[in-house]
């Protein structure tokens, strides 16, 4: 079944440590003490997650800020957020 995350809320895992330095997000996950580095677009998505934007809003922002077709952006953003979830960096919760 397709994981429909559009209507779900994305939360930063409160247990992580993170900082944006020179437009790059550095994130440490607590369980494995691993340092993750996000690229420019990943960092922008991370900022939007920190601003508590849902996936629709994130896609809107990325479409407005980067010169790429919407379909690619939608696919990439969803995949990226699922990777973040898998690594324990974000939690995806169903909207009430």
């Amino acid at each position, binding site marked *: 079944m397709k994981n429909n995350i559009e209507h779900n809320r994305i939360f930063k895992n*409160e247990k992580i440590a*993170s*900082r944006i*330095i*020179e437009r790059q997000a*550095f994130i*440490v996950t607590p369980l494995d003490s691993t340092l*993750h580095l996000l690229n420019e677009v990943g960092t922008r998505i991370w900022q939007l997650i920190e601003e508590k934007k849902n996936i629709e809003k994130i896609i809107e922002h990325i479409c407005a800020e980067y010169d790429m077709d919407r379909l690619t952006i939608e696919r990439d953003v969803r995949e990226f957020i699922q990777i973040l979830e898998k690594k324990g960096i974000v939690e995806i919760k169903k909207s009430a």
Partner: protein
Amino acid sequence: MNIFEKFIFLTEKRNIPFTVNFELTHRCNLRCIHCYLDNAKTQKFRKNAKNYELTTDEIKNILDQLADAGSLWLVFTGGEIFLRKDLFAIAEYARKKSFLLTIFTNATLIDSKGALRLADLALYQVQISLYGARPETHDYVTRIKGSFARTLQAVKLLKKLKIKVVLKTPLMKENFPEYKEIIHLNEKLETNWQMDPWITPKNDGDQTPLALRTLPGQMGEFFSNEKFFPKEEFTTGEKKRFICSAGKNLVAISPYGDVYPCLMWLVKVGNLRGEEFLQIWQNSPELNSVRKIKFENLKICKSCNLVPYCVRCPGLADLEDGDALGSSRIACRTAEIIRERVKCSPR
């Protein structure tokens, strides 16, 4: 270059204060024989020290500034930080600001309730001082009877809650004979551990603690042990190790708001009660001088053939002989021992 190396390179190059060693108090409930803070002159002051320490709000404000400056790894140290009644308020705020938080403590004041609150903080590490494998040795060093039992009890509580614990042992003449037992105790407790033989002078320059340093034979034994001897690191030793991160991507803050390049290098570069952090970090003439130090500026070390075996600390050189650009006696002694071991070890 892996991500961590990239991060270190970037923060050093751009002078981003990635690591902050923040002393929350100089007060302590132990009286360790080797302590670099404790002495007769300061004891009277320390009894009233909390009146002069940064307040909760001042610390929160500093944490805001540090987060904005790009600091990520924050170490709360003391004294004994659990003597501060606002410790959890400060630590919770630090985590809310997304710092990677490590605490240094003797753990004697951590009870089950405190351990649970620490577990909620998702700390990077809790580093705890352990001075012996036996109560009589540890309590001899701390000069407080029962401290060993209390520390160990806390370690067990933290381990049960899956908190990452590192037990740190400064080796000296008195506890050296049981260092193998200390390792065994760590293995039994399933804790990570660190040991080093670098006892330092007191912060006020008092050299008394140096009499506690391990004997030459003990140092030789220590560095002949495979568990300590960083063979690969030293056989490819380069002079780059001489220039440390102090003042480049590392900064230290005292309980009174004083800012230093490092807790070992006590050149006061400003005070956070009167100035903003970035104002000090970016404009301090002392910090800018520290950042410009090159290997060629090190008076004795630049022509020393022990360089490939040496881990020199400028702060320690300053504390030992009043010259951060000079050599450090303990570093020279250690390098000589390491060179002998490298020569003797099979390739």
